[in-house]
């Protein structure tokens, strides 16, 4: 009797093992089945192609209902978005997956700060989209940033970040300043220094507990975004310490940091969000994508109090691309989806929902922000303001370590002056040391 139970136990174990193995094998088989019917038109029962889209932050595709719309148009496609909140986490992950040749999503977003690195080091890992689309749809400078030396386009432009100034009308009024958006824009036109001068004016009669601007770094980024040269020369050689654009932006930022007009917040930190909610700063350099952010963080308390005026200079801050990795199993479908997502009509839909500004000028005439947005920002003609800026933005060259150099200057250099009371020279030296470490000098 005993032997018999032991035997049957062994049998059960064997059966379990066998079931597991066949299960695994079946799993593999199912996987390969999944892709085959689609090549033949995708009319097989349940033979859906799942496309994954890897993004960071908020791209607005899901929010604007674009995935649902596309899936309705193409019943054989289902779309899954993989969102990573932080860019500094997102990009290293993408790099390693691209080089491993597996694990990348069918469509991968590329931030503007990383696009040069992608163009110079990962071009062979992305499909050349130049052959698939009509390139003249996009702003010329936008395409140029994602194009390799031999003319390969590795990513389609999504949004751009033309700059304006968002300001609290109510706080301006209390401080006795001009509140009309066109007159304000005229006051600081052409020079970020004039904007800072107005800040000094504001601080003389500032409502208690408020400052003129959220941080010196945001003014720095805004001013640098309109410069002809950033940290690199057009030929790709690093030139950050001699660049006139960097010098001008730095001087303006130092003026902000040393004259007590900044709320000393770090952008995208929790306390910054609180600053929006509590209305502790009166202005913020406002790329188009910031409109959605303000809407969300400033909430009901800011309704109707915000207004938008043209920035001192045309300038760009941020904006992304989407590329199709060559390692993807469903390249044809992914290219079609990428094309569709970045087409002018779809970009206009994202703008209506999220105020991310299109990189395709033909969409500009059709742009309509959501009624709620217009109401929130005191009926400011944001479409007009942002498209005027977008058309005149200089074509900037982003170097391979652009992001790391920028972080060193803002989060080390400017922060030390702003929050630790160091002198501008000390801040510059600290940033230099950091940048040398970044560049491995």
């Amino acid at each position, binding site marked *: 009797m005993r032997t018999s139970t032991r035997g049957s136990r062994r049998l059960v174990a064997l059966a379990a093992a066998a079931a597991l193995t066949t299960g695994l094998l079946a799993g593999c088989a199912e996987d390969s089945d999944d892709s085959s019917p689609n090549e033949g038109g995708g009319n097989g029962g349940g033979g859906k192609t799942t496309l994954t889209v890897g993004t960071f932050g908020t791209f607005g595709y899901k929010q604007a209902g674009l995935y649902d719309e596309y899936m309705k148009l193409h019943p054989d496609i289902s779309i899954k978005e993989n969102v990573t909140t932080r860019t500094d986490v997102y990009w290293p992950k993408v*790099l390693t997956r691209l080089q491993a040749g597996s694990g990348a999503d069918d469509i991968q977003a590329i931030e503007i700060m990383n696009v040069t690195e992608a163009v110079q080091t990962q071009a062979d890992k992305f499909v050349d989209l130049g052959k698939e689309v009509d390139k003249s749809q996009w702003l010329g400078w936008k395409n140029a940033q994602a194009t390799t030396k031999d003319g390969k386009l590795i990513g389609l432009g999504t949004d751009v970040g033309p700059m304006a100034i968002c300001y609290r009308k109510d706080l301006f009024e209390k401080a006795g300043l001009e509140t009309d958006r066109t007159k304000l824009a005229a006051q600081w036109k052409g020079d970020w220094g004039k904007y800072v001068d107005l800040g000094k004016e504001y601080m003389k009669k500032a409502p208690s507990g408020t400052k003129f601007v959220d941080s010196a770094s945001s003014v720095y980024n805004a001013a640098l975004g309109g410069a002809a040269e950033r940290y690199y020369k057009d030929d790709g050689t690093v030139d950050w310490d001699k660049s006139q654009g960097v010098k001008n932006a730095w001087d303006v930022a130092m003026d902000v940091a040393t004259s007590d007009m900044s*709320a000393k917040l770090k952008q995208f*930190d929790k*306390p910054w969000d609180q600053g929006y909610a509590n209305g502790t700063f009166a202005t913020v350099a406002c790329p188009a994508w910031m409109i959605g952010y303000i809407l969300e963080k400033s909430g009901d308390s800011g309704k109707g109090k915000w207004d938008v005026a043209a920035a001192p200079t045309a300038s760009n801050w941020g904006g992304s691309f989407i590329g199709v990795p060559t390692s993807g199993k469903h390249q044809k479908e992914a290219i079609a989806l990428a094309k569709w997502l970045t087409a002018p009509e779809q970009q206009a839909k994202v703008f209506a929902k999220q105020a991310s500004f299109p990189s395709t000028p033909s969409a500009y005439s059709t742009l309509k922000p959501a009624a709620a947005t217009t109401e929130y920002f005191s009926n400011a003609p944001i479409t007009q303001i942002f498209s005027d800026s977008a058309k005149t933005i200089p074509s900037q060259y982003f170097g391979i370590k652009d992001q790391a150099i920028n*972080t060193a200057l803002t989060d080390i250099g400017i922060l*030390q002056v702003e929050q*630790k009371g160091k002198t501008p020279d000390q801040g510059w030296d600290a940033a230099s040391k950091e940048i040398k*470490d970044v560049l491995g000098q």
Partner: protein
Amino acid sequence: MSSSKQALAHAASADAAPGDQPGAAGRAHGRGTPPPPGPDSWRSRLYRWDMKASPYAFIAPFFIVFGAFSLVPLLYTAWYSLHNVQLANLDGQTWTGLDNYQNLLSSDFFWNALWNTCTIGVISTVPQLLMAIGLAHLLNYKLRGSTVWRVVMLTPYATSVAAATLVFVLLYSWDGGMINWLLEFVGIDPVNWRESDWGSQFAVSSIVIWRWTGYNALIYLAAMQAIPADLYESAAIDGANRWQQFLHVTIPQLRPTILFTVVVSTIGATQLFGEPLLFGGVSGSKGGSEHQYQTLGLYMYDQGWIIGNLGKASAIAWTMFLILLIVAVIQLLVSRRLRKSQ
């Protein structure tokens, strides 16, 4: 049932002794005698293999996983640390020998990170363990609802680092944070917790202390409850009060446990990463504008994943490993001396 069993046995014995008459073997089984344990019988060979190999098969999963996910990466990291490897170009590595290590030893940021790791380690581990012993001692008294207290002690440990740190970031926020508000209430100037040198290290340590004190207290409590009650009784007869009992009975009895928690906490402190990273918020891997709370773990992350210099990051990883080995050896020597002195 029994007939099929017999048939199976029949087949097996037929296999074992091909020369035998099948019928005879079947009859032998029918009488209930076991098969002869001949030296080359298939069954016994299988049995011997079972005895020898099974234990290894049972422990194999751990070692296979350990090899795949610890040993191979460890060796691969050592290999990387001798090369110039960029994150954007993993295949284009060039041999540089010990350059990465030399580079580290001459880097201010490295020494700064090492020093920070030590200071944050000390100001988080020491108060944490002292408080844990104190709490464990209190919990060791007869209390109403003692289980509730013990569970409550463990809740911070069950909280995720991210959630806890985000709450602390808000508490320590320099403008409108609760802690500065309290300080102002008692007339002390607000502190910029993230940017001041000691303030930021203290803030990071407080997160660590908050999370781990209860955990250590429970370990101490378990050890305290294993101390025989007669030790306390005889101490009481000798006239020792509660405090003297704690000092002369509890502490000496806890010595091996204390040593264990010190080892574990030291390893944890050397690898401190999540709390300072999240405390720093955006660009947290720099550990503040003057790297004032950048630990070795953060420095490695910054070099590897933000700057993209994987070779140097690997060198940092191995340096950390060597530091931990040295710490382990020191602790081994200390514990040996302690044991001898007992």
